[in-house]
């Protein structure tokens, strides 16, 4: 089966005007305008297979939205090629537009003063969806997104989360085969974020649609995307499994140790301190991240001390540190984990 999205050495450079602050430079710019070239996307290549859900990560200004706009045909690339479902996006063939969707979390496409149900009807007319198919898809989306009567209220009266859900429903009525989602959970509360994540996951499983998703909420990425593409300053930095990202960019691991002795926190804390010191003596970089444990050990919350100790160790020495902990302490359970993905991403961008 052909790839849903093929991006080959795609670049986009913008020529943007710039000037100093103030009236003088404002007047001067009337006669001589300065420009500079911004390389928003540079030589980016990747493919997305049918049914794949891919996270597209990068800090603000990394080139994520520019890439999504090129893939949906809104922006002409400066260089390179892209095909989506076999179409060249910038030609904006009607058949292409009928088979994709671009949802931007900060943009509204629904008619502001009308109930969403009227915008849905407009969508049906524009996308030429058969009535029976439309009613089935509409009712299904209303149920899955728990929209209920919200679709009968003017859009301007809905909350941000409610509006986002109706925007999502509207953008999916024509059952797109490829979805470009730019921050679909932006500004939503945790419950609403979770609901939309669940919905997208179900939608993908049910329809086999390919999804390229940008989000600043790592929970979105972890819940939906096995694979991530990381872009920074317009350049592709990583393309692979989410788990590999931590392995490649994470410099540390987290060791969680469950100690047997939870009755004498002060003594336990002392024993852990001794092991940490021994690790450092042996050249193991170890970060004793135990504020809560230490507090408990100091007696402030002695009765709540649960014996759980968390330590961050440099990646290569994690097995040695774990072995030492097991040897020196009375351990009930131990786990060695990758660091939180947010930390890895922060590190990628900081180093990038």
């Amino acid at each position, binding site marked *: 089966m052909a790839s849903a999205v093929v991006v080959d050495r795609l670049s986009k450079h913008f020529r943007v005007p710039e000037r100093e602050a103030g009236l003088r430079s404002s007047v001067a710019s009337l006669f001589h305008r300065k420009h500079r070239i911004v390389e928003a996307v540079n030589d980016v290549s990747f493919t997305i297979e049918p049914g794949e859900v891919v996270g597209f990560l990068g800090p603000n200004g990394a080139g994520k939205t520019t890439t999504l706009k090129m893939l949906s045909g809104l922006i002409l690339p400066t260089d390179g090629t892209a095909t989506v479902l076999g179409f060249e996006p910038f030609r904006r063939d009607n058949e292409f537009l009928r088979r994709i969707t671009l949802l931007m979390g900060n943009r509204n496409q629904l008619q502001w003063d009308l109930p969403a149900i009227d915008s849905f009807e407009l969508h049906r007319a524009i996308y030429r969806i058969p009535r029976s198919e439309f009613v089935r898809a509409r009712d299904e989306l209303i149920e899955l997104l728990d929209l209920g009567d919200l679709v009968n209220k003017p859009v301007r009266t809905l909350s941000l989360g409610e509006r986002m859900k109706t925007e999502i429903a509207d953008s999916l009525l024509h*059952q797109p085969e490829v979805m470009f989602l730019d921050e679909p959970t932006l500004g939503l509360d945790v419950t609403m974020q979770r609901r939309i994540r669940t919905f997208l996951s179900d939608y993908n499983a049910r329809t086999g649609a390919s999804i390229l998703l940008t989000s600043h909420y790592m929970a979105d990425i972890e819940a939906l995307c096995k694979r991530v593409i990381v872009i920074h300053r317009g350049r592709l930095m990583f393309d692979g499994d989410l788990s590999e990202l931590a392995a490649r960019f994470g410099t540390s691991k987290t060791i969680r140790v469950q100690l047997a002795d939870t009755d004498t926190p002060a003594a336990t804390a002392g024993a852990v301190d001794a092991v940490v010191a021994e690790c450092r003596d042996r050249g193991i970089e170890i970060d004793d991240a135990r504020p809560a444990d230490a507090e408990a050990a100091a007696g402030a919350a002695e009765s709540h001390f649960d014996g759980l100790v968390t330590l961050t160790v440099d990646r290569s020495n994690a097995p040695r540190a774990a072995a030492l902990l097991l040897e020196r302490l009375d351990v009930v359970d131990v786990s060695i984990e990758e660091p939180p993905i947010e930390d890895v991403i922060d590190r990628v961008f900081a180093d990038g």
Partner: protein
Amino acid sequence: MGEIVRPARIVEGRLRSLAAVYGGVMRTSMIRTVQYRANTLIELALMVAEPVVYLVVWQIVARTNDGSVDGFTAGRFAAYFIAWSWVRTFVQGGSPGNWERRVRDGSMAGFLMRPIHPVHQNLALWVGFGIARATMWIPAGAVLVLIFRPELHTGALQLLVFPVAVAMAMLARTFTQDTIGAGAFWFTRISAIGSIVGLVELLTSGRLVPLELLPGWAQAVSWALPFRWTFAFPIEALIGPMSSGRLFTGLAMEAGWLVVMWMVLRVVWSRGIRHFSAVGG
């Protein structure tokens, strides 16, 4: 992963599909007109107020000038300006400022992402608004007729020509506004250019004064510009009297300008979209 679901589509010809899309967009703009009823009524009131002011002034001038001005009687002025108010209500066709706003606030992206050209979307939108407003105009128009007693000289041929002339005027005016509006793809503020064109339109379209009352040179200028054909001509065709020769000349001029506007619009839009897409969307 389930089987990939290919969505169902209505299979039909391009024209039939376009007509159906027009129907859907027009329906939405009609709903919006009714939804914003207070706003629509105020706009209608303003559209009726403007010609009524002109009408009252010209009727006073006619009465103080032995009942007519260059053959324009009070009844003929009434017919002209009442027809004026209906034609203007129907052919409004948006403004360049709408495109400027869409580019600035990003909603242009939504227009471009739909499987129908933005010009078609805008035209359908304004035809819908036009039909809804022109229908809502009828009670106000009836009151104007009762008060000002228009004098009509409308024959059967004129009744046939009028809807064609109004439809072409609607198209030509929308294309003009869209062409100026497409300037927003290059320049952040395009409304100023729209205002300049609007001023020329005001002076040469017959909106301020019936063109027959203008001096010869001004009439010649108005002949050479599109605005008289896309505004005064449908009005004059309705209120008569007008010979069949003048009717067909008017239709031919209107059709000619319509073709010119359409071609200019196509060129400006295709280049504008390319530029817009190149600089950022």
